[in-house]
């Protein structure tokens, strides 16, 4: 493998890793900070993608679709938490799994009723549809680079939110010791509703942004869901930095695995997870909240 091809594969790995981080960031937030196993995360991603498709068909432009789409997702997440998820905090993980798995089935059927089962595509916005040539071999679409940029912006914003704002402080405190925070007069229920809405909005945003580079089809959430959990487990529950590192790791293992070990490439990511868990059972960047 010569140098230019190697560098392109590195670029592919980073780009894939960043996209994975964007999708998994919402899950990290909800799982890590609220302790809720949200299996419906993949469905929110799917709903975001389908929202991008329908809103772009209506407005004609992806950019005009993103703002209303994210706003809708925030409202949706807020209401969902209020009605369903708020009952789960004191319960066992099994009950969380059952509820959120049920939500997956419900969302898939609702989507099927509302939009049908056809495969759809979302056009890349004209402003970003150029391609950069990479040597003489291939070109790289500008839009994919934009997705990576968006991921980095989201990562930075999340970091600032959690570390340097009052809201972030309250969220982290609420995750460590709910009773104490409540006795200080802070409405923990409202806090968790905000976090859940944020998690859903992140997943939906990822779905919307990734849609033009991918395709919109039934069941697209399920594949992504498993990888998201792998990211969160490898990175350490509750750590946004961990999720970023884990996602990039997976990007590299998956990309180079496909090239060098094609027969086993399907299993390599899970092998990586197993190795990490043996070495560091709590994940790479376990946040000490105790």
């Amino acid at each position, binding site marked *: *493998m*010569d140098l230019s*091809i190697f560098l*392109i*594969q590195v670029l*592919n*790995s980073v*780009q*894939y890793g960043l996209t994975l981080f964007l999708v998994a960031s919402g899950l990290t937030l909800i799982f890590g900070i609220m302790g809720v196993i949200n299996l419906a995360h993949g469905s929110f991603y799917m709903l975001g993608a389908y929202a991008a498709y329908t809103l772009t068909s209506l407005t004609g432009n992806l950019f005009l679709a993103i703002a209303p789409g994210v706003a809708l997702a925030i409202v949706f997440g807020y209401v969902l938490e209020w009605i369903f998820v708020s009952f789960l905090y004191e319960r066992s993980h099994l009950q969380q799994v059952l509820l959120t798995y049920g939500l997956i089935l419900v969302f*898939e059927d609702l989507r*099927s009723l509302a939009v*049908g*089962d*056809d*495969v*759809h*595509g979302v*056009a890349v916005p004209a402003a970003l549809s150029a*391609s950069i*040539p990479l040597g003489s*071999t*291939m*070109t*790289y*679409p500008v*839009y*994919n680079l934009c997705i990576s940029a968006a991921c980095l912006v989201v990562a930075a914003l999340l970091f600032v939110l959690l570390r340097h704002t009052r809201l972030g402080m309250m969220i982290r405190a609420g995750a460590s010791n709910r009773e104490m925070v409540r006795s200080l007069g802070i409405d923990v229920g409202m806090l968790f509703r905000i976090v859940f809405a944020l998690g859903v909005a992140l997943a939906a945003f990822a779905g919307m942004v990734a849609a033009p*580079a*991918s*395709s*919109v*089809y*039934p*069941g*697209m959430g399920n*594949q992504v869901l498993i990888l998201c959990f792998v990211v969160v487990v490898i990175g350490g529950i509750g750590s946004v930095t961990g999720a970023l590192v884990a996602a990039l790791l997976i990007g590299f293992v*998956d*990309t*180079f695995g*496909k*090239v060098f070990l*094609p*027969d086993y*490439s*399907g299993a390599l990511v899970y092998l990586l997870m197993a190795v990490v868990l043996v070495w560091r059972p709590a994940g790479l960047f376990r946040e000490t909240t105790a």
Partner: protein
Amino acid sequence: MTTNERGRQRRRIVGALGAAGVLGAIGAPGLARGQGGKVKVGFMLPYTGTYAALGRAIENGFKLYVGEQGGKLGGRELEYVTVDDESEPAKAADNVNKLIKRDNVDVIVGTVHSGVQMAIVKAARDNNTLLIIPNAGVDEATGPLCAPNIFRVSFSNSQPGLAMGLVAALKGYTTAATITWKYAAGEQSIGGFKETFEKGGGKVLKELYVPFPNVEFQALLTEIASLKPTCTYAFFAGGGAVKFVKDYAAAGLKEKVPLLGAGFLTDGTLDAQGAAADGLLTTLHYADNLTTPRNIAFRLAYAKAYSSKADVYAVQGYDSAQLLGIGLRAVGGDLGQRPLLIRAMAAAEIDSPRGRISLSPSHNVVQDFYLRKVENGENKSIGLAAKALADPGRGCSMG
């Protein structure tokens, strides 16, 4: 009465009603079957997941033909039972047993995914249930696992590949890279292409595989770019096909390395693929713009009934119903006459929207393959890739 007595009496009444209801439900179906009742057709198709649109198109095509015949085939009405196989091979055996044992269907029509099909074929052989395959091309179903009660009206996985290999060799391409998912359908399609391409003087440089149903193609597209073949042959379908064609164009490969594909790459996916698919060459046993009166009438009727464009999956569903109709007509609706039914179906000449088709001794369809080019959002036939192409049916003990 005391509260206890009232409660007991209520429970007794509910219990009696419940028992009567259960007995009635068990007894009723047994009455209206056999020759006089409805023929029970069991659809085992994907109604969810990446192949959901294909499953729906097949069922729509089937019901369109039955509707055109006034709702009856061979003088008997049909009733339908559906099972969503979710394209999951792991659940396939349970799902098909639901149709055979719980629902007692007379004929199974299914399915799309080749892995699921293997379980259905095994169950059909074990229970001697009539099976019409409306899509899954797994070679074994009309190869080593062929049986008199199993018919396929779609294609075998190698057929489109065999046809495209001929085309690629004739066009003068010398080297090729192949890419597909690592499952039966993909491997057999590549196998067909490799066979005729190398017989025609070409050489397959590398066979690239992506685990099913993974859709991250970037790494392998870079591989193709570094291999620099004169053409690429790809097999994908559904959501994966959309992403692959878009990714291939976005990587700038479309102009440098012509993309050839089995027809499924561009069937039912052109709206989603947009400009990325323009000019792509594929081989398939169907093309949207075939100008035969039969095809024109079929496409109009389908569009009217379902408000969407017919595709190859709808045609296959339609022809499944035609085949069943031919069989039922030959036995006057009496499914008990199995040998006569099988003989009639095996000898069937079907007037399909794709052209006249017949069946080979292994019960796989013998048909023409068209070379199609994507133009203006349609797969337009630009000529024949192969005439009356039959799958060799290696390993089949019939005929």
